[in-house]
């Protein structure tokens, strides 16, 4: 069996050190591996804070470009603080995007094509028919709470107010419903 590239075995901090210690642009494998790991995490951060697929994709591009550029420039002093470093860039970039700031084209113009990370893959998709079939098997209350919660990602107090339930009660129903749905969708239900 072929051994994985050494970059795959290193932790994030080691990859960041490699990039910082190399001549700018001379650690392409480490940069690619770090982007492979960070891009989906940054995309989720974008989805959470911007609630928009395209804006999240823009954020991912911006953050990855800035992160690699700053690592190349030796701006991260302690590589063990990489997550905190990226978090800071994310926060700043979200503010910029909310102000209608940078877009991918401008970023590429600013940083150059060689820094452009590959697109992060979206989350694994569940089979729609299976999810629908499993939802239909849930008790009514769990089904309603899950639909009303996740259709627009609404918090427990909002959903509870619409159904005459306390937020605590909604959280309990939601948690139980999600667990049951996941078991059914992934087939764990049948295995038990």
């Amino acid at each position: 069996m072929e051994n994985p590239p050494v970059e795959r075995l290193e932790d994030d901090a080691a990859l960041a050190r490699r990039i910082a210690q190399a001549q700018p642009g001379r650690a392409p494998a480490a940069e690619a591996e770090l982007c492979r790991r960070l891009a989906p995490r940054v995309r989720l951060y974008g989805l959470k804070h911007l609630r928009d697929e395209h804006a999240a994709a823009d954020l991912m591009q911006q953050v990855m470009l800035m992160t690699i550029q700053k690592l190349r420039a030796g701006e991260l002093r302690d590589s063990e603080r990489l997550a905190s470093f990226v978090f800071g860039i994310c926060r700043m970039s979200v503010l910029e995007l909310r102000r209608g700031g940078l877009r991918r084209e401008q970023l590429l113009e600013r940083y150059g094509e060689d820094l452009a990370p590959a697109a992060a893959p979206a989350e694994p998709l569940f089979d729609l028919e299976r999810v629908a079939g499993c939802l239909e098997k849930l008790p009514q209350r769990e089904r309603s709470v899950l639909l009303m919660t996740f259709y627009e990602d609404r918090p427990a107090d909002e959903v509870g107010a619409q159904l005459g339930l306390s937020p605590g009660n909604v959280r309990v129903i939601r948690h139980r419903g999600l667990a049951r749905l996941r078991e059914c969708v992934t087939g764990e239900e049948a295995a038990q």
Partner: protein
Amino acid sequence: MNDFACAAPLDERTLIEYWLGELPEDAESAVDEHLLGCGHCSARLGELVALAGGIRDALRHGKVSAFVSDSFIRSLAGQGLRVREYRVPRNGSVNCTIMTGDDLLIGRLEAPLAGVTRLDVVIDSPGLPGEVRQDVPFDPARGEVVVVPNMVQLRAAPSHRLRLELIAVDDDGRRTIGEYIFNHTAPTA
């Protein structure tokens, strides 16, 4: 941290509450930072987000039936979903159908719900034994139960008569609150 392991994984509840914006600001920031440094927990959140997307798509494509709230329906309509509504008075009936452009069909069952703590619904379809939906959610203050049928099944169904019975359940037993008839005409091809 890396892609493979997490020394202090976030629990499921925290991930859900984070995603839905229920955490206090400082706790949310701590989770943000953890997720950016942790492939393991981030992948678990990604799975949760994908499942939430499946739930959303199931409703958007009319593949699931449910009892929901009036506010929820108004929100769906506000987003551009084409919602056809039928209001049925207590012990009344309505003629209904489904059109090509409809995204969702809803039935509003008017009922006196003050003081009701648990509600069951019996659904009588032609040729099938009565199906009991236990403990359906409702907003007691609105005086109606809002039901969303499975659009895919309904589109495939022939013209038929559907009877729904609302039953309040409490310590004293079960009592019928109202009966509702839907005279459904299948759309012509």
